[in-house]
Structures are given as C-alpha cells and as structure tokens.
C-alpha cells in the first residue's frame, strides 16, 4: 500500500511529461486532466482529503473544462501525432531534467518512505481540517482580499473580451 502512493507520485510526473512533450495541445490537455486526477488521488492517500476535493472541483471541474474548450477553439484542425524527433527530444529532455532532480534531491533526502495518516488503521481526522478553518478566523483579511481580487478578475476578463467589432473579438 505504501508503494501505491509512490505509484501515484510517479504517475503525476508522467502526466507532466505528457504535457511537456505534446505534439498538439489536444494531448497536452489529456495529460493535464490525468495529472490532476492522479494528483488528487495522491493528496487523498497522503491524508489531506479536503484539498484534494478542492483541487478536483475547482481545478478539474472549473478551470480544465474552460481549458478544454479553449483548446478546441485555438488548436489546429489537423493535429500532429506522437512519434518523430520533436516528441522524442522533449521526452529525453524531460527525463534528463527529472533524473538530475532525483539524483540531486532524492538520494540524500531520506529515500522514498512515505508515512501516511492511515498507517495504523483508518484515521478519522484528516490533516488539513485545522488549516483551512484559519481562513475564517485569523486570515479573514486575506480572505476578503482574495475575494475582492477574484471579483476584479471577472471585470478584467470582461474588459479583455469587450468590443463587438472594434475590439479583438471577431467571428471565429
């Protein structure tokens, strides 16, 4: 069961590899969806289930849906496929960088032992219950600032896509 967590971590790195070495954005979006699903599973098996759910709903359900639609708008109608020198070069470069990072930081950092919260039976209290509640008690100022920033972002996006014919939106 310990190696399951390691497997999910490796799966996340493979998803990042899939995104980085995509011949077309369609495959990149698949890699991003796979990476966020595997990342959610990884976080949940490590004991923080709330942020895993937050990632699922906000990231997968909100942002990635918008990303998929944007990719379908902005990508080319005849996508390239896997195979070829470009993809192979990207894969090799990514594996090289990941290997260097593993050797520099991985060997001396205590190995791959993962002690999850479910080590001795299922532990009912997850590890992030106290942290997010701070958002409402101590960090209420930052909470309000973040909400205000999100509201401002809405108006920023509306301003960016404004203009029927004078602006930059035209018939696609």
């Amino acid at each position: 069961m310990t190696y399951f967590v390691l497997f999910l971590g490796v799966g996340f790195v493979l998803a990042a590899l899939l995104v980085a070495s995509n011949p077309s954005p369609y495959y990149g979006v698949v890699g991003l969806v796979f990476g966020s699903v595997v990342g959610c599973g990884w976080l949940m098996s490590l004991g923080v289930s709330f942020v895993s759910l937050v990632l699922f709903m906000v990231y997968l359900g909100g942002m990635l849906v918008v990303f998929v639609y944007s990719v379908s708008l902005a990508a080319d109608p005849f996508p390239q496929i896997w195979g070829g020198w470009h993809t192979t070069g990207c894969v090799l470069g990514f594996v090289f960088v990941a290997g260097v990072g593993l050797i520099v930081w991985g060997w001396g950092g205590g190995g791959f032992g993962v002690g999850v919260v479910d080590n001795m039976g299922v532990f009912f209290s997850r590890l992030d219950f106290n942290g997010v509640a701070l958002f409402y008690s101590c960090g209420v100022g930052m909470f309000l600032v973040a909400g205000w920033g999100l509201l401002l972002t809405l108006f920023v996006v509306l301003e960016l896509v404004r203009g029927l014919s004078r602006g930059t939106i035209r018939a696609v």
Partner: protein
Amino acid sequence: HLISSLLCLETMILSIYIALSIWPIKKQTSANLMKILMLAFSACKASARLATLITSTPTHASDLLHNLNLLWC
C-alpha cells in the same frame, strides 16, 4: 502554439499546489492557507491568460507563435 505554453504553465501551477499541500504534512506545520490562496490566484491568472488567448487568436488566424505579430492588437 500559444496554448501549449499555457498548458505547461498550468502543469507548473498544479505541481506547486501539490508541493504546497505535501510540505505541511512532512514538516508537521499548519500552513494550509497558502495553497488555497494560490489556487484562487492561479484561477485568476488562468482566466486572464485564456481571455488574452481567445481575443488574440482570431486576429492572427491561429495561435501559432510564428504568426504572432505584436504590432497587431
């Protein structure tokens, strides 16, 4: 492709988010505020980037970086 760079940036943000989630577990601290804030602000950034992409793609007939001419709007 401009959107390929957006996808790679999103992957980086996702990996930073997971790292910010795992770090308080390993260090046994309670710093869980940073990842929620980071997720909120990364949503803002992604929406602004996507709006820029959507509005600049029809002008240049595609989002290939070779076609982007910064003198156009």
